[in-house]
């Protein structure tokens, strides 16, 4: 039976864990570096969603913009097309005769939520980061949640 001690041992022995430590340390160092702010310098133009006029963003709007930029950077960093990634995937034959393949984000599943025209929020689960980003950016309606058989259809259009 597994004990707390044995799990700690597994975590500590893991090569992956060491890599994570290094990666985390690097991220932490970058986050603490004063020069990083300069990467986000540049002119910002904010369009008032109500009046359509350009104006300075409020603190809240500015924070949201920062978050979006960060998300976009994270999403685009090192991005390679799904096709290219699939070609790059390597099958590793192991000593016991088995075969292993590492997966990347093109094989992960993503839950995406979209607000429909009637204000309800629909959700869809899709495979691959590219598909998920496309769904978010297109604003396409995701699946519509339902609570009863009567309305249980994938998307209801009005005409």
């Amino acid at each position, binding site marked *: 039976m597994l004990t707390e001690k044995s799990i700690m041992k597994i975590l500590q022995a893991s090569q992956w864990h060491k890599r994570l430590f290094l990666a985390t340390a690097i991220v932490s160092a970058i986050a603490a570096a004063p020069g990083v702010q300069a990467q986000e310098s540049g002119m910002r133009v904010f369009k008032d969603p109500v009046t359509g006029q350009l104006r300075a963003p409020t603190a809240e709007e500015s924070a949201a913009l920062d978050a979006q930029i960060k998300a976009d950077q994270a999403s685009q960093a090192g991005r390679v097309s799904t096709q290219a990634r699939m070609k790059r995937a390597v099958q590793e034959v192991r000593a016991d005769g088995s075969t292993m*393949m590492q997966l990347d984000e093109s094989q*992960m599943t993503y839950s995406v939520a979209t607000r429909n025209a009637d204000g309800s929020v629909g*959700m869809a689960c899709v495979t691959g980061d590219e598909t998920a980003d496309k769904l978010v950016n297109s604003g396409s309606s995701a699946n519509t949640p339902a609570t009863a058989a009567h309305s249980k259809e994938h998307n209801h259009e009005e005409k």
Partner: protein
Amino acid sequence: MKKNKTLALKSIATAGAFALGMSGAATAFGAATLVIVNSNVANEGFNDTTPAAPVGGNIGTTLGQQRQIAFQAAANKWGATLTSNVPIIISASVVPLSCSANSAVLGSAGATSVFRDFPGAPIAGSWYSGALTNKLTGADQNGGAPQIVARFNSNLGQANCLAGSPFYLGLDGNHGTAIDMVTVLEHEFGHGLGFQTFTSGASGAELGGMPSVWDNFLWDNTAGKRWVDMTNAERATSALNFRKLAWTGPNVSSKVTTVLSAGTQRLNISGPSASTAAGDYPVGTASFGVVLSSPGVSGQLMPVVDQPNGTGLACNPLTGGNALSVNGRIAMVDRGVCGFAVKAKNAQNAGAIGVVIANNAAGTAPGLGGTDPTVVIPVLSVSLSDATILKAALAKRTRTSSGVIANLGVDPNQYAGADKLGRALMYTPNPYESGSSVSHWDTSAFPNQLMEPAINGDLTHEVTVPFDLTFELLKDIGW
């Protein structure tokens, strides 16, 4: 019975990450240990120190703590359900993900690696998720690396990130209009555990030229083949075969009648002139009109023709021959120009006892939106391809008789979300929806299931019979 062995792990601060905890509450199903490894940096995600009031049984007092507890709750559910003597390690983080004002990635998860042809593999030449491989071999096959990676959105609900629709971090399911994080986590963890094919539904191409264990259980009712026996082109076609792709695993099949409700909404065609058009058709249902029921409403099917090209839109009150033909019968109306409810009301005003809307574009029968409480007849839709078959059968008719009988109702012997042989259906929308297809239950399943492509608001956190078929499918693939 085993004892509950849920533990909490200490922080491994020196390694830059720490395990949130492990779960393995033993139940009649068994026990597995899920270790959630916090991959967030300081003050981010799980480490966010923003004060938060306890909610719905989540006793965390900071946003970060509440996120940890929600993740642990989802892990606990799977830990209490699955059996494995190898810890399932999930690298988890809550970070900014793609957002817009009206759309957002809630989160993602997936297996980090797959294995095939390992000693004792139940099915040779098929990919298994890392966590499942570890369970089946009884040993860690990947040097302690996480078998699952999960990332969730830290900005959800904030301005420009689906504002007003944040995660509900409570554990009681009382999420209201917010998005229940535990449910989304359970769904995504389910994929990471192996509830998915690694074969492309869009192209039919297998991962590395080899099928997933999943593909051994997919049976196309039209092709009469399993996915593993198909060509790439056949699989791509099968992924579009609306409500014709069934799961053949014995565990799921034996529990369909326990979990799903009897009765599938459908259009049945019969009558002396039906000929090859006779039979059942999948339908899109309407958000207005009466709910389809058994025995349903039957009558002669008569097309409305009010356009020069021979179609019938019924956007205006029906007159003359159209009013005569649909009176006391079921009207067939083409989609387009005006709302579905408008068409239905015009047919009803002419005396129609039901309406069949024919789609005007390729794809599945659309769900019919709209509101009109004065529509009191059943209304449904059929796909363009099915409408073409029906119109061919209606070609020879008089002004008041077609010899084609339509029944708008429910097949009481077919379970909601299963085929006529009682096998659960997988999601195969047409046109194809990238990634949503095949690795989910069909949306006709009722009661709603955790692993449908859309997470429905009435889901509980249960993953087992009698509420949910998810664990039965995982058992079919080896769990």
